[in-house]
């Protein structure tokens, strides 16, 4: 049994379930649609404001795209915990570490590819709508943000995927992560700003800013997100290896 064969099998799994493949495509669709809506309406106005971060504005819609990335990572794994489907999968690939590694590589890899298409398309299309305020990829930090944003999306998908392997439920993971990213920062922002900066989403989003304020720098921030994702992946790996299927 080769890694290539198992990767191929995992890719067919993603392609053959509409909701999983749909979530992956929604990363691009959501980010692009929201970018067009915002840039087309209030983009120029915002860009004209003093102190506005042109990069952060360009990639603002990744806040919504990341929800699709999380849903993708969670549903791609949770499909294995549906009615004991995992038994069929593990009967075919009984080496659990190989199975897990191939699955996560496929999820991370496809999220990264779609993430790259998403960040570059979003950037270029968004700037087309900004007229005189438009910036190019030559702008300092622009390429960093485009590549970093794609890595960020892949890490979010992997974070959700690893947690789903641990908790065995996409619903549990989505109801844990989405409030964590959408609500907790606003609640905690006054009392524990420093903590919020090291949450997986806030830390990684430093890579999207022209001049990240205090807190981790662009690559350090992304590394913090990567550490969160790695922890989730390790927990999921432990669960898949040790538990009865």
């Amino acid at each position, binding site marked *: *049994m*080769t890694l290539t*064969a*198992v990767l*191929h*099998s995992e890719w*067919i*799994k993603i*392609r*053959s*379930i*509409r*909701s999983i493949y749909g979530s992956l495509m929604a990363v691009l669709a959501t980010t692009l649609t929201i970018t067009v809506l915002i840039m087309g309406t209030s983009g120029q106005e915002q860009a004209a404001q003093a102190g506005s971060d042109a990069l952060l504005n360009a990639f603002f819609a990744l806040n919504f795209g990341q929800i699709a990335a999380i849903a993708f990572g969670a549903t791609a794994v949770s*499909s294995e915990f*549906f*009615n*004991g*489907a995992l*038994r*069929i999968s*593990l*009967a*075919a*690939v*009984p*080496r659990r570490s190989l199975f897990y590694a191939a699955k996560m590589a496929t999820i991370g890899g496809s999220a990264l590819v779609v993430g790259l298409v998403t960040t570059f398309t979003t950037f270029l299309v968004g700037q087309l709508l900004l007229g005189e305020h438009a910036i190019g990829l030559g702008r300092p930090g622009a390429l960093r943000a485009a590549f970093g944003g794609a890595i960020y999306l892949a890490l979010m998908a992997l974070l959700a995927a690893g947690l789903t392997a641990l908790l065995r439920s996409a619903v549990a993971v989505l109801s844990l992560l989405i409030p964590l990213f959408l609500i907790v920062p606003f609640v905690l922002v006054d009392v524990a700003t420093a903590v919020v900066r090291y949450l997986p989403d806030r830390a990684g989003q430093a890579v999207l800013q022209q001049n990240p304020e205090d807190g981790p720098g662009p690559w350090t921030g992304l590394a913090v997100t990567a550490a969160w994702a790695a922890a989730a992946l390790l927990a999921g790996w432990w669960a898949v290896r040790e538990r*009865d*299927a």
Partner: protein
Amino acid sequence: MTSIDVHELTKEYGTTRAVDRLSFRVQPGRVTGFLGPNGAGKSTAMRLVLGLDRPTGGSATIGGRPYARLTEPLRTVGALLDAQAAHGSRTARSHVAVLAASNGIPMSRVKAVLEETGLGDVGARRIKSFSLGMRQRLGIAVALLGDPHVVMLDEPSNGLDPEGIIWIRELMKRLAREGRTVLVSSHLMNETASFADHLVVLGRGRLLADMSMKQFLDSRSTPRVRLRTTEPGRLRSALASKGLTGVQADDGRWAIDGVTAAEIGAIAAGEGIPLLELGDERATLEQAYLDLTADDTPFAALTTRDRQET
């Protein structure tokens, strides 16, 4: 040849022993029926053989190797565990293709097994639109995918219509004739009797019997003869002289316990008593099974494994 060897296999869930020091061997070339009531540990034992659950103790091997060590396991072992486990959103074809891809099985086999199981026309349909019987056929298609030496089917006739049941019975017999190792679990006795050559019987996780179907029936039933005669009075005295008693039923048939038709035939011929009908009554598997489990020591293992066969 590839046999399934289970040695001292034990699985505990909390304080419950689902499988309790189970040892048996499933030989190639015959259909082995895996019998026991629901909850006897049949499915757990199969999951343990496939390495899906971790045993608390003991081991299970296939052709001498643990399942997880098999390279491309679907080419050695085909298993149907739970037909409901296939993801409903996939089409039948992509469900089988996923499994084929992981084991380097050519895609031409996907089409072949779908056709073989009667699903050739519905391969592009989503599994959630399938009836229970179609899902069962899909599970069997997956089991056959790698042209395996060993086939393990857990309750394969669940949900199948009568033609489906006949089909699966003939399929299992054919697989055994081809020299494959076939283990089929069921809680339905009469159905198992129609295809199994050998039996492994479980009760509460323990081995109750491991023997051929014929041995099992013989060991679990006393011989009985049924006959009809035109001269009941002479027959009664002839039987009495041999220390036998017959019981006459309302329809005029006699039942005589503890003898075979050959013995009664000889007695009747010697006495010149005309017999209209004479035959051995074969015990059914169901009767033999109930007799086994009704014993005072129902869970004492009763093993007559034929060593010369191994």
